[in-house]
């Protein structure tokens, strides 16, 4: 008989708590569309956030709800987009392949240094005290972007600038976020002409601190007035589709080499 008391007590306690949990579950249950799980599994699971959502799962939820188009995942690309579109019975849009570009040509030789920086070896830290170059817009050269890249698509060149391997770049945008000076951004891979400078200094100052700085002379603007404008003493490409291929040599007359095509040997 003695053994019955503890058994019944535990059974009663267990029953009490389980009934409580059942009621709580009814009140607090979260309904989740099973399609979210399926779509989520198709995604690359890089959780990079390039789609604008906090992770692959959040993006999957948005796609299932119809808030985001399936082609917005730049890492998965066309293949994943079509796969998702097939599963959900919707049509995937056309994908513009993008790639990260470096907007600085301030190599160790070209950009004058302010002194040698011996602090914590990250761009984030160096940026706080102004960096080691006289130019306060240029690449800091300590490779935060290379560290941020999850796809092994970047390395630092000997000249102290990041180099992007186009084939490996998935345009996830992690390097763009990692750079404290916004040297990097994502551009369509078909865009040939790139501005290689971020300096908003006036011409004479810009020229003094870096050989490859945009001095806002306007040669490129005269070559393609529809496509290129000057903004804050810096050339800016408004619409790359309006750049006439025949005018590219005119644009590349740039006296400081701060606009033009990538040089294939080391800047892919």
């Amino acid at each position, binding site marked *: 008989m003695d053994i019955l008391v*503890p058994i019944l007590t535990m059974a009663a306690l267990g029953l009490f708590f389980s009934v409580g949990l059942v009621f709580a579950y009814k009140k607090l249950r979260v309904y989740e569309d099973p399609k979210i799980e399926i779509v989520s599994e198709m995604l690359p699971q890089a959780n990079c956030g390039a789609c604008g959502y906090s992770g692959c799962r959040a993006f999957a939820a948005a796609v299932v709800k119809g808030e985001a188009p399936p082609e917005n995942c730049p890492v998965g690309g066309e293949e994943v987009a079509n796969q998702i579109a097939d599963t959900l019975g919707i049509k995937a849009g056309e994908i513009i392949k993008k790639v990260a570009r470096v907007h600085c040509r301030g190599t160790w030789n070209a950009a004058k240094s302010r002194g040698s920086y011996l602090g914590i070896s990250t761009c984030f830290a160096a940026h706080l005290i102004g960096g080691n170059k006289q130019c306060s817009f240029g690449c800091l050269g300590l490779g935060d972007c290379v560290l941020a890249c999850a796809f092994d698509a970047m390395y630092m060149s000997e000249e102290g600038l990041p180099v992007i391997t186009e084939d490996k770049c998935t345009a996830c945008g992690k390097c763009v976020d990692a750079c404290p000076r916004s040297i990097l951004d994502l551009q369509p891979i078909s865009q040939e002409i790139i501005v290689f400078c971020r300096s908003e200094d006036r011409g004479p100052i810009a020229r003094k601190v870096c050989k490859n700085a945009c001095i806002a002379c306007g040669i490129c603007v005269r070559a393609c007035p529809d496509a290129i404008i000057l903004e804050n003493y810096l050339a800016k490409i408004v619409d790359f589709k309006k750049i006439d291929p025949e005018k590219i040599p005119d644009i590349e007359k740039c006296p400081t080499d701060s606009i033009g095509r990538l040089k294939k040997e080391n800047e892919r």
Partner: protein
Amino acid sequence: MEIIALFFSAILINNFVLHYFLGICPFLGVSKKIDSALSMGLAVTFVMSITAAVSWAINHWILIPYQLDYLQIVSFILVIASLVQLVEMFLRKISPPLYQALGIYLPLITTNCAIFFLALMAALKNYNFIETVIFGIGSGLGFTLAIILMAGIREQLDLADVPEALKGAGISLIVAGIMALAFLGFSGMIK
């Protein structure tokens, strides 16, 4: 007066993490960012205070009258497990990002020895109901304090030049040890 002393001694002097070294798993696991550390601390505080109340009720109304003291361990675990389930459902409903951020550490509160220790300690010391609840809240806040301090230090540690061999858990345990030494300074303030 004694209740106030009990409350503060649970937070500062007999801090569960830094004095008894209990609950180290979430203390190291969720202390990488201050905001998730804060939510973890609050979840533990919630579970601790309710556990204290419910386990007191079970102990004094069921176990002691029927001489079933030996069922303390298993019935307290039942209480803790059910409460953690409740917190999990609640968090999933009101804050999915937080639910994701806490991840596996949320269900692991169930096996957090700090909470179990609290229930046993309160039974052992024969606290009355109010003392038990105050002890529970104080211990939870003590855990929250410790994990937030740890998270603050670890956010700074990300920029520090730590020797390769000590990166990650190693340096965190050293920091925890130094924090425990610092908290030793409080001992003896309340008898």
